[in-house]
């Protein structure tokens, strides 16, 4: 449809609320640094008008952030499986595969939208193993948009994956930002997600502690919003 006209049906290739909230925060900070913070919103708007609107960093983006991948580690995968099935260790365990989504799987699926230029797996900061997200870079912006429309929200390795347009990979962003090295969301997850190692890691480590009160719970919920190892 023509640009600028709102469609009668929502578009799936728009950036998510995550990106916008991040972006807005940053904008406010920038203003603060520029010393414009004394102005109120209205004058600020008036001030901006004559200038060119800031270039949208996603306008020609060819990169996607991909989240919610399988990220269970080998040891735990095997242990979980064995414990669940027989409750014992088994000599056969090396035949079990490491339970994280592999680059090859990502290639196989994401190539359906166009040739992949680069794939960067998100890694646990300490163990350097995949920790549940990756960046997929295509050659064209259109391929990235098509990926948002056709692949985001479908399954890979039997998990519903999430895609979001991304201004581009930078060195360092491949590492999880959680305290224990993985993704922040995996620290304080209170749902049991087998594909991501059961409960949140922080929760597991403080398991002996008494049940957290609801106050604390709410606090943790806000952590969910800052999930992913991305966009500092």
């Amino acid at each position, binding site marked *: 449809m023509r640009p600028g006209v709102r469609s009668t049906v929502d578009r799936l290739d728009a950036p*998510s609320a995550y990106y916008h909230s991040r972006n807005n925060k940053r904008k406010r900070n920038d203003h603060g640094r520029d010393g414009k913070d004394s102005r109120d919103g209205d004058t600020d708007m008036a001030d901006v008008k004559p200038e060119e609107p800031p270039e949208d960093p996603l306008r020609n983006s060819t990169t996607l952030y991909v989240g919610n991948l399988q990220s269970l580690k080998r040891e735990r995968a095997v242990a979980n499986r064995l414990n669940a099935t027989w409750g014992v260790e088994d000599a056969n365990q090396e035949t079990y595969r490491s339970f994280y989504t592999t680059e090859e799987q990502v290639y196989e699926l994401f190539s359906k939208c166009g040739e992949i230029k680069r794939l960067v797996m998100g890694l646990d900061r300490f163990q350097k193993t995949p920790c549940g997200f990756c960046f997929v870079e295509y050659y064209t912006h259109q391929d990235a948009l098509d990926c948002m429309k056709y692949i985001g929200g*479908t399954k890979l390795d039997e998990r519903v994956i999430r895609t979001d347009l991304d201004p581009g990979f930078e060195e360092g962003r491949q590492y999880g930002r959680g305290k224990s090295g993985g993704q922040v969301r995996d620290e304080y997850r209170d749902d049991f997600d087998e594909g991501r190692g059961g409960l949140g890691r922080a929760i597991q480590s403080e398991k002996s502690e008494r049940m957290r009160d609801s106050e604390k719970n709410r606090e943790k919920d806000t952590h969910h919003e800052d999930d992913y190892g991305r966009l500092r």
Partner: protein
Amino acid sequence: MADYERRQPSGGGSGGYNNRKRRYRDDDEYDRRPQRRRYDAPLPVRIRKQLLGLAESPLRRWHEEVQSIAQVIADGYDDQELQTSFLDLVPQMVLEQPLKIPFVAAVVLVVNSLKPEVLDPLLARITSATEERAKEGEWRDVKLYLKFLACLQSCLKGDGLFPVLDELFSRAVDLQTASSDDTIGTELVKIILLTIPYILAAAPSTESEQKAAELMDKTDIIASEPHALQILIDPYHAERGTESPVANSSLIGLLQKQLQNEAANGWPLSCLPRPWRMPLEEIEQQEKLDNAQKHALPTIALPNKVTTGPRPLFPEIFYSVYIHQDIESVPPISNIASSVIRDALLDTINVLHFNRNATARFLIDADCYFAPGTFIKRATPFDRLRDMDGDRSSWKPEDVAVDAVFSQLLQLPTPEHKLVYYHSVLTEACKIAPAAIAPSLGRAIRYCYQNTHRLDLELSYRFLDWFTHHLSNFGFMWKWTEWVEDVNLPDMHPCKSLILGALDKEIRLSFAQRIKGTLPEPYQALIGPEKEQDTPEFKFNNEHTPFSAEGKELAALLKRKAPDEEIQPVIDRIHSAALDQSIDPLVTSTDVFMTAVCWVGSKSLSHVLASIERTKDRLLDAGAASEAARAQIITAVINYWSAHPGVAISIIEKLLNYSIVTPGAVIEWALVGDRAGPYGQALSKAWVFELVFHTVVKVTSRLRQVVIGGVTEGVQEEIAAMRELFKTMDDALVSWAQGTKDQLMDPVVPDGGEDLVKRWGERWLRVFRRRSAIEEAFLTSA
């Protein structure tokens, strides 16, 4: 029925999946937030919402809904904002939500009976937009606007829309007489024939019938003649001595006959909705409608020179995966319903590529947008159709919907959007209404499987790709037991080839053990232990492999990223040893080196890419040195990753990007010798087709980019190279297809395999000759 209520109907399609605020399923169903104070949205906003939601609910009655919206619009029309938004929204809805066109038209007709001055600016808007789109060659948009105007025929003065159709026809005639390959004329005739039924449903009269008959007399010559290009885009590749099941199914040919049928029966057009027709109790409103003011339709000037538009046009064939069944679960091709419903669904699918959820919703709700009684109740099991009364419809709405998507998935030369879009539509439809859609998909899958031998090979591959991708979204569950007997067929049999290809693709999206777990016992042997291994063995670790020591040494050097000076001595040693054994030194060293590169990078694609990046100069030199060495690079990669061809294909794709191997080398490797499989078996392997197909697409799309980009330097060379590539393929494939290949002449060929190989050769040949023809057509048009 249970599926109906899964999602609440939401104005104009639901939102995205990226709604991260709702993390729990419950949140979707019960909103526990404190209710915000209610306030009435501004009028234009309310009207927008109502218009967008038109006809979505099977619980609302059409005439009531239409009247109530029309009333609000007429009452508030003095509001400037409302006028603007209404005049913007109507044309937009016509283009974006084609299934609702008759309903939007009904609203406009009722508005006309209440406030006739609304119509003139609206008609002006639509007609000028139509002109605009015709100029751009956006023929689908033209068709949709005309469909809308056709629904308004009853409020148009004089002959209404007919003169426009006459004008379109005279254009079509000029184009068709000028060239037999013309496709725009065919498209224009299609538009005319698809517009006529809406005029007759909206304004049935003897004059209309007369006009339609005159028009159809004229279109007959063009519509009944098979198009020169039809043979090229037939989805079936019939075996010798047989006829394609769709040989007589050109879309406009069928339309012409269907309309003649309708005319002969007094135009019942029983599937079309007529929301502008009021029930008996609304006789007053009906009278108002009948006596409403008529308006002159502004002229729609067609451009002097019509163009194809952004997408190349091809004649269309009506394809269905259900028409062969013994019970009618979709309209038969003799019935106008088959074309009219398909047309509306296809436009919906292709227009709404930006929200597959909305598309899927429309497909599931398809029965809401056609006359009551057109379809049987949703999710009626196929077996139950047998017990139906004679005169009630047995058309399953989900079959009709799935059929429409399949017709796109299996459309030649290519559908409008990437194939994965159509995959995603089927996935969503299956998620929304699994009980209704899954059994329909099952029957479609069986049909494609049983007909894979005569399906065009490219389409067979597309089917395979969709099938496995679809399964990956639904726990890899399929009733493999029903094909269990085919497991023992020779690997070259089309069905067995499909099974093998499917298992490989499933494994790529998952892993061998998982897939094995979904298969009945007889299939287990098809997934060998080598497939369960993430990292293949390094053959040089085996002492008995020739050059084992050098292989290990090279691997060790590569692992510690040793400089090239340390590598060269080992290569030299291989060279001299090879010379002593009188084998090709460069080929030998290339095999050892490339295999070592693969092994060192076996941990993941990133590893192997980094490993290639570090050694690319050496590989480039080897590849440039001789054809045999170039082929050996490919052989080494494919041999190392033989259990996981998907990985091998990705690596070769990157080697092509680095120009370490050439497209020509890949084609030669796959098709000329027997490196990809003895006795022509390569031709039956899905992954070989994938490798070659991707390579060809890479070459052709690069050339297109260059040509479109207007670069002139070196273009002629690239064109020549592409032609050379197609020629190589043609030569190789012709000799397979005709059985003149040395390997085929060899008496060692297993029994009966020869005919199979020839057939595979023919199928390959058809695919790449078509590709070549299409590229040539592109070059002449560019």
